Structure formats: structure tokens, C-alpha cells
């Protein structure tokens, strides 16, 4: 099985461990990106649906404005008919009726002006809504495209991870390379180096007794591990 040196096996195992870690990180990031893209696409879709609902509300508002306009017009005709009755009564007898109808007609006229203002504002809102929906269209397309691309990237990432897992198996069978073991050995090496650096730093600061105590604890630990094995 072993046609490579221990050092090469360890190096391969460490590289493989790094590759597996990077691949796992990539898959996690890919999953998060996928969720984020899906959320954004859904939000843009939600905004578009909101735009559609606003269009329906706008239609209702226009219909009610028209209904109000018709009602005001009927009211105006009623006041004209009342004024006509006043005119038939004569300038003196019909004076009060004429004055009242004039007042009502004036109020109806003001209401019609306010209604026209409302209709103008409703039309402005409708134009604003159309502009927003037009702007949202390309955004929705882009969000869908991103979501689809991210999904493809996630699939590629999974494929890579599977390929890496197969490669790991192959390397373990062929050369006894174990990325987990390699990773643990690499970590132990790093931590041992750190420990030596700490001891040196303690001695450099004159903390010889503390350094000796630490060394003694390491030795005791090492001895107990040897005895156990």
C-alpha cells in the first residue's frame, strides 16, 4: 500500500484536509447565498404583486371618483331645477329659494373642485406605481437570474465535494492518506510550536520557575499518555 514516504503522506493528508475544509466552507457559503438569493427574488416578486394590488385599488378609486362626480352632477342638476322653480315664483317670492340653491350649487362646485384634485392625485399615484413596476421588472428578472445562477453554483459545489470525497477514499486506499489524521497531526504540530514559543517567551522574561513548572506538567502528561498506550 505505502509507496510514498511518511512525510509525503502527511503532506498529502494536510493538503487534502485543507481542500475538504475549503470545500465545506464553499458549500456553506453557497447554501447561504442560495437562501439569500431566493429571499431577494421572493421580495421583488412580493413588490411586483403589491404593485398589481395597487393597480386594482387605483381602479377602484377611479371608479368611486367617477361615481362621486356623477352624484355631484346629479346634485347640480337638482339645484338648477330648484332654482328654476324659484325663477317661476318670481324675483321676490323665489328669492329665498334662489339664494339657497345658489349656496348649495356653490358648495357642490367646491366639492367638484376637490374631487378633481383627488382625481389628479390618484392619476399621479397611478403613474408613480407604473414607473415603480417598470423599474421592478428588470430587478425581478435579475433576482431570478441570480437565484438560478447561485443554484447552479451550489450544485457544482456539491459535485466538487463528492469528487473530493472520492479522491479522499482513493488516496486512503492507495497511500493510506487520512485527511482527518493529517489535519490532527498538523494541528498538534502547530500547537507544539506555539507551546515552545511560549516557553521561550517565559524564559526571556526571566520566568524560569514558571517555565520549568510548565515543562514538568508537559512531561508528566506525556509520561501518563505513554503509560496508557
Amino acid at each position, binding site marked *: 500500500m505505502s509507496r510514498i514516504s511518511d512525510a509525503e503522506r502527511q503532506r498529502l493528508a494536510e493538503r487534502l484536509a485543507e481542500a475538504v475544509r475549503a470545500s465545506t466552507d464553499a458549500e456553506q457559503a453557497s447554501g447561504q447565498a442560495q437562501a439569500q438569493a431566493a429571499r431577494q427574488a421572493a421580495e421583488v416578486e412580493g413588490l411586483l404583486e403589491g404593485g398589481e394590488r395597487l393597480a386594482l385599488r387605483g381602479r377602484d378609486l377611479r371608479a368611486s371618483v367617477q361615481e362621486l362626480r356623477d352624484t355631484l352632477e*346629479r346634485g347640480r342638476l337638482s339645484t*338648477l*331645477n330648484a*332654482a328654476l322653480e324659484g*325663477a317661476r315664483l318670481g*324675483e*321676490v317670492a*323665489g328669492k329665498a329659494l*334662489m339664494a339657497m340653491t345658489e349656496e348649495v350649487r356653490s358648495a357642490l362646485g367646491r366639492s367638484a373642485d376637490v374631487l378633481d384634485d383627488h382625481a389628479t392625485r390618484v392619476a399621479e399615484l397611478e403613474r408613480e406605481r407604473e414607473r415603480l413596476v417598470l423599474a421592478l421588472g428588470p430587478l425581478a428578472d435579475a433576482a431570478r437570474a441570480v437565484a438560478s445562477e447561485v443554484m447552479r453554483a451550489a450544485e457544482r459545489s456539491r459535485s466538487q465535494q463528492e469528487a473530493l470525497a472520492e479522491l479522499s477514499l482513493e488516496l486512503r486506499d492507495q497511500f493510506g492518506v487520512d485527511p482527518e489524521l493529517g489535519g490532527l497531526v498538523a494541528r498538534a504540530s502547530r500547537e507544539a510550536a506555539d507551546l515552545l514559543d511560549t516557553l521561550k517567551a517565559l524564559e526571556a522574561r526571566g520566568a524560569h520557575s514558571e517555565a520549568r513548572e510548565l515543562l514538568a506538567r508537559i512531561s508528566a502528561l506525556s509520561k501518563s499518555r505513554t503509560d496508557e498506550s
Partner: protein
Amino acid sequence: MSTPTPVPTSNRAGVIVRLRGELRFLSAHLVRRFVPPPTLSDVAGTGLTMALVDGQVLAIIPVGPRGAALTVCEVGGELVGLLGADPEAVGFFEPDGAGVTFDGQNAPELDVAELVRASARGTFEQEAEA
């Protein structure tokens, strides 16, 4: 205490209508009422237009664009509807020649009887042509 006697004035009671952009006067005794423009029905082969207004069938004389109101007038005991004569004001107006003054402008009287006759002549001419 005596009740003040109404002082008769020379102002004319009636309606100012706008007909194809021009102001015209209709006497109050001629105009019956104003109603929203009804659904019109052409009487085939006669050139006449009729409409059902408050349960009554009226002859309609189109004098302008449809507008916002039908002015119902009584001419010779018959009711006719003027379509396209939109009412602007109702009240008492200072006489001015054959019409009145409204907002400083002259509003000549609209001869509805003549309109009815003209309408009838048009119908008769069509019948003769047929």
C-alpha cells in the same frame, strides 16, 4: 304695521345655456327641468331621435355635443328635450334686446319653437325624399 308689497322688476326669469360655446337664453316658462342625458333611440327612417325620460317618451333635438344635461322644454303643450344645451345659470337676468345680459355678455334668446319646426321640416324633407 303693513306688509311690504313686492316690487315688480323688469328682469327676465330663465336659464342661460351654453350652446356650441355660445351663451343663449331660455325663458323660465319654457323650461320644465334638467335631467342627466338619457339613452337615445333613433326612429328608423324618420331622422327623429327619442328618449325615455322619467317614464315619458320625448322627442330629442340634438343642438350640440351630448354634454352633461338634457334640457326638457314645453313647446305647444308637448315636451321636447334639447341635447347639447348645457345649463350655466338659472335666475333673473337683465333684458338685452331679444335676449338678456349674463356676466356682461349678451345671451340671445333661443327660439325652441323654431328648433322644433326645423326638426320637423328635416323629418318631412326626409319623408319626401324617401
